[in-house]
């Protein structure tokens, strides 16, 4: 059983194994399939019609399933690898070790936002951007540009204190909704969304998994969901049933069509967190 660890505490070997497995998935053409799938859901998930991956209650179980699938692909290459999580409330500067040459590489250069360092720089020849909304073949980042801010621990704690999983209309308008405030369409810090914005480049687009930081960000979001479940043991997934356009507790989720939010509620069947 995989134990997912805080990226700040990874050994040099852990980092190298993770990076090498990601590069191998890219080489085999598997990685870009995840990018395309994510974008298809981003485009079709809408506030007033069918929505599965985003702006809806199944945002959390959908991304949990998506991460489990990705982690499974990594483990086919190296069984020792698990997804690390990035606590952006703590490691919150462009010089944090996550952006080191031995891990995700650094900020983009000012001229064209191109990432020039680390294993995902275009010059390595191993990280071409193939699925994108524009024709730039290189990974881009603009860490903290235009005054973008990462969420603070206090903002995250305020969201974790919310007691109701989700509320009508079960979209980006939901008030008093742990899910919508964690996703960041509402609330101080716009939690999940603002991390995409802070990184910039492809992370700010529908093709966000082009940046491997996507997985470390969503792994922390996933951990926050499990933290919330532990804090509120009597607060279950909502809605329970009969809700148009959204995935109820026991409805199946696209694109897998064989997994429900109920199947995803207990992550310890699949992996655990280090704390």
């Amino acid at each position, binding site marked *: 059983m995989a134990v997912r660890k805080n990226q700040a505490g990874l050994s040099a070997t852990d980092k190298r194994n993770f990076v090498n497995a990601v590069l191998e998935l890219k080489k085999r053409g598997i990685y870009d399939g995840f990018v395309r799938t994510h974008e298809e859901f*981003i485009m079709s998930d809408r506030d007033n019609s069918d929505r599965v991956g985003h702006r809806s209650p199944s945002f959390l179980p959908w991304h949990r399933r998506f991460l489990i699938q990705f982690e499974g692909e990594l483990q086919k290459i190296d069984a020792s690898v698990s997804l690390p999580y990035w606590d952006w409330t703590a490691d919150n500067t462009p010089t944090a070790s996550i952006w080191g040459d031995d891990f995700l590489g650094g900020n983009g250069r000012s001229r064209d936002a191109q990432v020039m360092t680390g294993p995902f720089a275009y010059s390595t020849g191993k990280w071409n951007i193939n699925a994108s*909304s*524009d024709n730039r073949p290189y990974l881009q980042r603009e860490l903290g540009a235009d005054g973008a801010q990462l969420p603070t621990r206090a903002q995250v704690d305020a969201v974790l204190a919310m007691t109701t999983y989700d509320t009508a209309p079960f979209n980006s308008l939901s008030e008093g909704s742990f899910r919508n405030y964690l996703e960041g*369409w509402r609330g101080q810090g716009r939690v999940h969304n603002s991390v995409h914005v802070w990184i910039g480049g492809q992370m700010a*687009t529908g093709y966000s998994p082009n940046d491997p930081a996507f997985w470390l960000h969503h792994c922390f979001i996933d951990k926050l969901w499990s933290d919330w479940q532990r804090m509120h043991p009597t607060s279950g997934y909502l809605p329970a049933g009969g809700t148009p356009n959204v995935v109820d507790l026991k409805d199946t989720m696209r694109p897998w069509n064989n997994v429900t939010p109920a199947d995803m509620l207990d992550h310890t069947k699949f992996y655990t967190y280090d704390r």
Partner: protein
Amino acid sequence: MSSNITRRVVLRGTAVAVAGAALVAPTAMAAGRGAMTGMDHSGHTGHGGPQPFDEMYQGRHIVGKAAEPGSMSAHHGDGFSVFIDDRELHIMQNGDGTWISIVNHYLPLADPHAIARAAVEKLRGAELVPMMMNMAH
């Protein structure tokens, strides 16, 4: 495409709604670098759909207009289409009336005009990939 004065069309009726001004601030500041032409304050979003626009911005030709019936944006773009140098930008309206695009997905802005300009800034001269190419699978 370079900025071509014959293609420059004076911006009309595209005032940013006051309520959206705070959200738009980073983009509006960046607009100072661009080829913004006039702006009047008669327009208002929220009545009968967004205001159309057609202007050069940072050397790019941006157009926003009601979607052609049956077009992809009639289906996906809430009845409004945005183009950057004749390539369509995928946009979406949020339930609260704000807008996002495929290149700016996690930061809602007030209207399609602000979305178009933000996309130009993010593209830094790059071309959009035609939407159908991404849809074709």
